[in-house]
């Protein structure tokens, strides 16, 4: 009975469910075989979750983001279930992509968000208020009327994210938004989005950098078009045996965070830290708490 109740709650919290989704874009050239970018993908996105989608170049993670967001694409097969909240949002969920300059069309951050709201056909009376509120949320209030050209790449990404918040998107889909940023801008953007998540926003964070993982994230690992892992970081880093170098992370060719490498090395010396540390803070805490 209790289990069923749990399932029901999860179902109620489920924003999007993808069932047996495959994406095979049609090819123009007859000589080429059509190749599937996604193969038989099953995922559920729950309200309030932070999902980190990791995958190498060309693994299909961007396509997964587009399908999840409901972008119209050729060659999509499978079942897509969206809950009331998503459907109420109606149109597709906005995605922010890698190139910060490409999607800016306003001359100032304020204009950019206002244009986005106007183009979305939102209620005219509240547009200004919502735009300014969203820019405040991402920490761009003081640069609101500054010319777009004077913004850094990271600030442009925050403006784009503000646009998504302003249109009331039930889910933030961020496709490698830090890939083209320098480390300081990248961590600035990541921290801002983490703060937004703390306030209850659901985030689909697509990345190649494992050091962007935080405790509590749900990981979707994508490889050659399939979801090869769906779960918490513990399982992603776990080795079958101390010193076995067979964790999923390693098998898929990802560079593990430095702290994870330290923890693995400790494991082979018989020291098992729990929860498995993959950030500096986690390692320090785990070592501090460790008892033989």
């Amino acid at each position: 009975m209790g289990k069923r109740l749990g399932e029901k709650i999860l179902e109620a919290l489920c924003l999007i469910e993808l069932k047996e989704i495959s994406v095979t874009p049609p090819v123009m050239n007859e000589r080429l075989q059509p190749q599937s970018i996604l193969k038989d993908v099953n995922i559920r996105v729950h309200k309030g979750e932070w999902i980190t989608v990791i995958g190498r170049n060309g693994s299909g993670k961007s396509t997964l983001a587009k399908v999840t967001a409901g972008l119209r694409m050729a060659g999509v097969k499978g079942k897509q279930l969206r809950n009331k909240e998503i459907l109420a949002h109606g149109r597709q969920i906005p995605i922010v992509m890698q190139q910060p300059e490409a999607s800016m069309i306003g001359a100032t951050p304020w204009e950019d968000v206002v244009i986005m709201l106007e183009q979305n056909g939102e209620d005219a009376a509240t547009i200004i208020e919502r735009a300014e509120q969203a820019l405040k949320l991402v920490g761009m209030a003081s640069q609101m009327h500054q010319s777009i050209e004077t913004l850094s790449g990271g600030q442009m990404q925050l403006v784009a994210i503000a646009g998504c918040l302003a249109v009331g998107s039930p889910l933030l889909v961020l496709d490698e938004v830090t890939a083209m940023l320098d480390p300081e801008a990248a961590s600035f953007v990541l921290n801002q989005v983490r703060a937004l998540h703390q306030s209850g926003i659901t985030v689909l964070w697509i990345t190649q950098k494992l050091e962007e993982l935080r405790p509590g994230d749900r990981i979707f690992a994508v490889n050659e078009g399939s979801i090869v892992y769906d779960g918490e970081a513990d399982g992603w880093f776990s080795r079958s045996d101390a010193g076995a170098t067979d964790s999923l992370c390693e098998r898929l060719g990802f560079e593990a965070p430095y702290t994870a490498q330290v923890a693995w090395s400790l494991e082979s010396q018989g020291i098992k830290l729990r929860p498995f540390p993959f950030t500096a803070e986690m390692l320090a805490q785990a070592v501090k708490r460790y008892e033989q």
Partner: protein
Amino acid sequence: MNNDWKLNGVSVSTGGTDKKQLLKDVHMTFKAGQITLLIGRNGAGKSTLLETMAGLRHVDEGAITLGDAPLWLPNRRKQKLNRHVALQYGISLQSSESQWFASTVREELLYSLKPYKVDEESASKRKAKVLAEVGLPLELLERDPWTLSGGQQRRLSLACLLACEPDWLLLDEPTAGLDAVGIRRLCAVLEAHRAAGRGAVVATHDLDALLPLADAVAVVSGGVVREAAAAAAVAQSAAAPQALRALAELRAEAAMPPQVSAPLGSGAPWPAPQEVAAAIAAELHARPRRETEAEAEKLTLTRKELQLADSMPADEIVKELSSAHAGAELLRSDKFDPRALVIVYMMLATSVLAQNSVLEVALSAIISLLLLIPFRKLIRPWMGAIRAYLIMIAIFSFIGGIAFGPLSFDWEKVWPIWIRFSKLLLIMLLGMPMLKLMTPLRLQRAIEQTLGWLKHLKVPIHSFALIVTLIFRFIPLLTGEWERFAKLAHARGKASSSLRTIPISMFHAILIPYVRSILRLAEQMADALEARGFGLASRKPVYGFRLRFSRSDAKLIGIAAIGSLLIFLIAALL
């Protein structure tokens, strides 16, 4: 053979009238057979330094020599790039992976090899070799470079560099956009390059991956370049490498003995994971003797300092921006209603045009210029054009004044020409700040609010909104892209013609890739906009804000009205 790269007192500044110094008096020697990292925050001048070394930027002062040969040859008035030197290095610019010239990977590699005049047989050998080195399958030779994935394109751009077998590699952010496997391969390539006695200068943020390889580190900060020890360099970089973060955390929690330090001999100024693990294990076994806390405090790199280094840049940026924009209230693009600006412009332009004598034009010039003083900052970018126009007026006036048979100079003929051209100049000057004082969106809104009634006549006035803003967004991209191509032509084609222009011989090779690249830019923009949800709603247009005449608009119109009245009044009195 001495093949060091020497920079002696090199200074570089931006071109144009608004001279800003990018590099200040740089003295550096990059040693052959070493990998040197350039580190520093964004905008510190790392890319500028690389481009200067590669002859893609003119130096104001100082000399660059490679081995014993100068990079720039003295040549009459203009400097000329030393082709012999230029062939000894290869440079990969930031995001050069997205600018391909040829229609297949094979031709792309040949394009890079062209300046080296390699015979066909060794060219095909080299192609196979470099593709293997960067980890691209040979089958890709016939593929269109544009159809490769992002990571593959990055590898191809490295392959193009390596195919030329240059003595020096200059790389700008080579790890950006590469996955872990790609980064490992890049490191292997760099190591092999060094092992062959060749050198590399790499600008990077990715200390985790590249610092372990480096023989030397140079810190670039505010246009100043200096050598640094690897450990000190880390503190200068934007984000501390993961290892140091972990160590700082561990020490702050007194969870690790402080004696673990960088092993001698290896490049990275941090211990390997295994060493840290060993130290932690030792510490854990020795518990509960806790004596390390006092020692931990002595450590140089504590968590606090790291956080400080982290939070600083953001503050600095904010400070810089706010200082740059203080007092610029008047020049903000949303200060005035575009309609007010148009009215003001019409009034002033009419009163200038109505003047007919030299004295009257001079008078209106004085008043117009006085009115323009608060907006002088917005006119500055046009100084070059204004100067050229003034020279043109002088020449025309001079030619107009010459009378033949007998040869003489007739002032009476000069004045009409002078008056006509001066009036045009004044009108142009008055119009210049206008463009910066309104944004495309506000202009569109002004048109909409004034001409909105046109929609009853089935003129689709509201659908111009997006189009107007998009066009204005796209125009700067076109020129920016052309300049990038010019740079690329010099970097890969080793052209020694003057910078910023594309040599005629390369024109045909570049035109089609340029158009393609523009189309791609447009596509990228369309994708990004579609992804953000633009163009989905097909309902009635919504206007989030409407323009309203404000007090500042009234003031502006008032001042302009007084100005033009003065012109008319004084002209009547004269």
